[in-house]
């Protein structure tokens, strides 16, 4: 069972809960694979387990952290998304990872949009960034779909990443940007729903 204090977030297709011991297997297979090359991996099994434990400890230290993303219907794990702020990070980050088999269904878009809104609404953040390896095309693309923009002035973790700054809470409140994200998610749920003017990958 996840930590009782970690809030549960529901979206149309997903339920996000604190990371639990039984959710670990696909985290390990992702972090010990080539898939994790932009997230500090691939790691050994030992390093992967230590990182998973640290993801849980992060919640206790900061009161926020990475949620485990579950399929609302099957409860299967799909990846993780949330706030990430370990020592050494210049500022708070919205981070994500999606298991390889889950890619291409808009799960990261739906989950990251939900956790970003949660952090803005419940933690009172007025800004947040994502640190992205510029070679990680899927993440760069996701940043753009989420309305985040390159912030060349912001300090990066090291020279290997670029900083995307997310839209502020005000820029997401009842705006065209927020509607666009919701419509893109709707298109994944119902592919026959094709709103005009929404870029679909």
């Amino acid at each position, binding site marked *: 069972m996840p930590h009782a204090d970690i809030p549960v977030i529901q979206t149309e297709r997903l339920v996000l809960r604190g990371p639990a*011991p039984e959710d670990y297997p696909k985290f390990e297979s992702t972090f010990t694979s080539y898939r994790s090359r932009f997230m500090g991996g691939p790691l050994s*099994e030992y390093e992967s387990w*230590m990182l998973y434990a640290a993801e849980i*400890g992060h919640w206790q*230290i900061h009161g926020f952290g990475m949620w485990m993303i579950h399929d609302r219907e099957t409860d299967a794990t799909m990846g993780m998304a949330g706030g990430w702020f*370990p020592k*050494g990070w210049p500022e708070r980050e919205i981070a994500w990872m999606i298991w390889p088999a889950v890619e291409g269904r808009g799960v990261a878009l739906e989950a990251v949009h939900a956790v970003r809104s949660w952090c803005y609404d419940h933690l009172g953040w007025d800004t947040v960034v994502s640190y992205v390896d510029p070679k990680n095309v899927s993440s760069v693309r996701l940043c753009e779909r989420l309305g985040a923009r390159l912030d060349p002035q912001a300090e990066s973790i090291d020279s290997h990443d670029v900083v995307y700054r997310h839209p502020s809470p005000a820029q997401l409140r009842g705006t065209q940007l927020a509607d666009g994200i919701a419509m893109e998610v709707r298109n994944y749920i119902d592919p026959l729903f094709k709103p005009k003017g929404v870029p679909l990958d």
Partner: protein
Amino acid sequence: MTAIPTIDTARLILRAPGPQDFPAMRAFYASDRSRFVGGPKDAEGAWRQLATEIGHWALCGYGRWIVEDKATGTVCGIVGLWNPEGWPEPEIGWDLFDGFEGRGYATEAAEAARAHAYETLGWRTVISLVDPANRASARVAERLCARPDGEFTHAVFGTVIVYRHPVPEVCL
């Protein structure tokens, strides 16, 4: 998550690790004292280690406690039950921070952790892994009546000596 119990011994308090323990962890991992336990680590590495110590409790239902010197309230080490992925079996581990050696604190805290493993968790056996060059740690194992029981080789820690503790009937 399992509530982390607090244990009271003659001179020490064993309590849950928390954010307030970061300075002590950073100092320990910055020092040469951490060379047998994966250090030295920079501040970022020490922070992740602290987060991992907390998460270990959630993943396993047991873990390591921050040890406080009762008289002064000072944090003097991190001791407890440790079993990350790839470990040969659950162990009792002890890291004593600078300035607290030579008082039997590691032994006293490890004895309390062992009692918790046997009495509360119902374990029938437990080991401690000791780097062959870490004489101070081997002496703690010996004072706890643990005896060498083979070797274990780990990708990060190399080959270490497995000390096996006496069974519950002998310890309790």
